[in-house]
């Protein structure tokens, strides 16, 4: 289910790809979203599908706050900004994992009964698990939405322009911090959406994000930085490659295929498939 990776990667594509800010805490955003979804279900019996917009909204606020409190300052660093971003967000990731362990304990949790959990649907004789199918649909919608947002609205253009030249945007009256805080919020909201849907069929534990985060970075880079469409294509390729590798190699090696394809692609095209930066 490559679209699932696509869904996690969209949010990252916005932050990492379009704004060119390294976010090593992306997986932890996902983890928070999954826990939110779990607790909304456990305490208020709201089905993850219904609570998804709530989770996305909460993550929007979270992402924007993180930007304003931390990342804004990390980007201001004059010397080796890249490393400062990497380690600020990496430190943040560790803190978030620690907090999750502290408040939620390291136990594995899952949402046992939901509208979609464990059900399958048959299309032309092929059985597909419903949660994954919904995940795929949502991710396609999210991609199309983001694509139009970036290319058709003033705000989307403002994000790209701000990355290109913060000084020039300031001259035409765009507040860099407002634009980027909104971008971070949106990126976090998208990963929140992903988390809400994944909470239905994945175990939830403090380290859950780490395993998906690396795949998400690879997906974004495979598609090429600066391209939403690239991240989407990257997501589909990653999913297909994983499925094929799983057929040929033992399941524990399935990620090797993804990594090998990434290396192959960047050796041939050093800027990814559709990258512009």
């Amino acid at each position, binding site marked *: 289910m490559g679209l699932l990776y696509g869904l996690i990667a969209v949010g990252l594509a916005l932050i*990492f790809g379009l704004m060119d800010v*390294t976010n090593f805490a992306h997986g932890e955003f996902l983890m928070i979203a999954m826990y939110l979804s779990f607790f909304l279900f456990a305490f208020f019996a709201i089905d993850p599908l219904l609570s998804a917009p709530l989770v996305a909204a909460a993550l929007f606020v979270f992402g924007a706050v993180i930007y304003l409190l*931390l990342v804004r*300052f*990390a980007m201001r*660093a*004059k*010397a*080796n*900004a*890249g*490393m*400062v971003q*990497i*380690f*600020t967000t*990496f*430190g*943040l*990731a*560790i*803190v*978030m*994992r*620690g*907090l*999750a*362990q*502290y408040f939620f*304990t*390291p136990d594995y949790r899952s949402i046992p009964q939901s509208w979609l959990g464990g059900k399958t649907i048959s299309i032309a004789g092929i059985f597909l698990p419903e949660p994954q199918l919904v995940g795929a649909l949502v991710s396609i919608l999210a991609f199309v939405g983001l694509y139009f947002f970036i290319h058709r609205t003033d705000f989307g253009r403002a994000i790209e322009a701000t990355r290109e030249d913060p000084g020039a945007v300031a001259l035409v009256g765009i507040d860099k911090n407002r634009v980027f805080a909104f971008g971070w919020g949106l990126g976090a909201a998208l990963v929140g959406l992903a988390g809400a849907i994944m909470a239905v069929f994945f175990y939830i534990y*403090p380290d859950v994000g780490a395993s998906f985060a*690396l795949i998400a*970075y*690879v997906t974004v*880079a495979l598609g090429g*930085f600066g391209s939403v469409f690239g991240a989407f294509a990257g997501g589909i390729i990653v999913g297909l490659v994983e499925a094929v590798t799983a057929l040929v190699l*033992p399941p*524990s*090696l399935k*990620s*090797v295929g993804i*990594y*090998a394809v*990434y*290396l192959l692609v*960047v*050796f041939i095209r*050093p*800027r*990814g498939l559709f990258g512009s930066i």
Partner: protein
Amino acid sequence: MDKDFAARRRRDLIIAAVLAAIAALTPLFVKDVVVQNILILTLMYAGLSQSWNILSGYCGQISLGHALYFGLGAYTTELLFTKFGVLPWFGMLAGGAVSALIAMGLGYPFFRLRGHYFVIATIVIAEIGLLLFHNWEWAGAAMGITIPIRGDSWLKFQFLRTKLPYFYFALALCCLAWFVTWWLENSKWGFWWRAVKDNPEAAESLGVDVFNSKMGAAAVSAFLVAVGGSFYAQFVSYIDPESVMGFQFSLLMALPAVLGGIGTLWGPVLGAAILIPLTELTRFKFGGSGRGVDLIVYGTLIVLISLALPRGLLSLFSRPKKTGAAR
């Protein structure tokens, strides 16, 4: 300027000698095993970080995949030892050589990549190595390798009753990595690396062999890190893929250099001297609860230091003139 530079280099060497001598004497006063353990790890990470700094700091090719070389060093040594009975001392050199060769082999395609694409490629290649070792039955797969206990001997570099030999080896490794950096800093290579880091196109046009200088940095860096990996394997006497090749090692190697001052001679040592004891102490103090308090403290520290001192802790000491000479 030249005179200043030579004087600074002499001064650095003297400071290093004094520090090494003080470090060598500490075991006379420190008998506590827990503290000795922390000292050994601090020295080891200082050495590793110093080695990482050669490629990523001086030459500017940020690698977050050095765990690969660390793991290769550990695995080469232990596979040779447990399967063929080759002494760890030779295994160490073999591990270094294997890592340096692989680093150069990987360098061919990798050094064409820039920025994020390069960093992600280094993460990915280490991850591939990790997964391959996970599935390699002959090398113990996920179970790893337990190093057979044969009693205390320098020959087999194995000591059960005392940690002192490990301490001195870690010290020697740290000194070696420091000395190599010190020596290279003022060699043709050192100047090439800094030129490549600052502006590869300009360096190329002035006749610097950009590609080969990156290769050289990668080989030296990988060799030293692999020796560190061999040491670690002997020190903990049990290795498995996660514990020597996991992504966290790549970050742990980079952290001291980044916090201390990336691309500087003293940054990694300073960073390790502060970071590793702090890490171990927070783990010692809060880790037992299993509730992640150590992670919260540790993470907060990293965030604060990265934000407050983007140039690293070393920038607190240096006046502008000196950083000018050092960079």
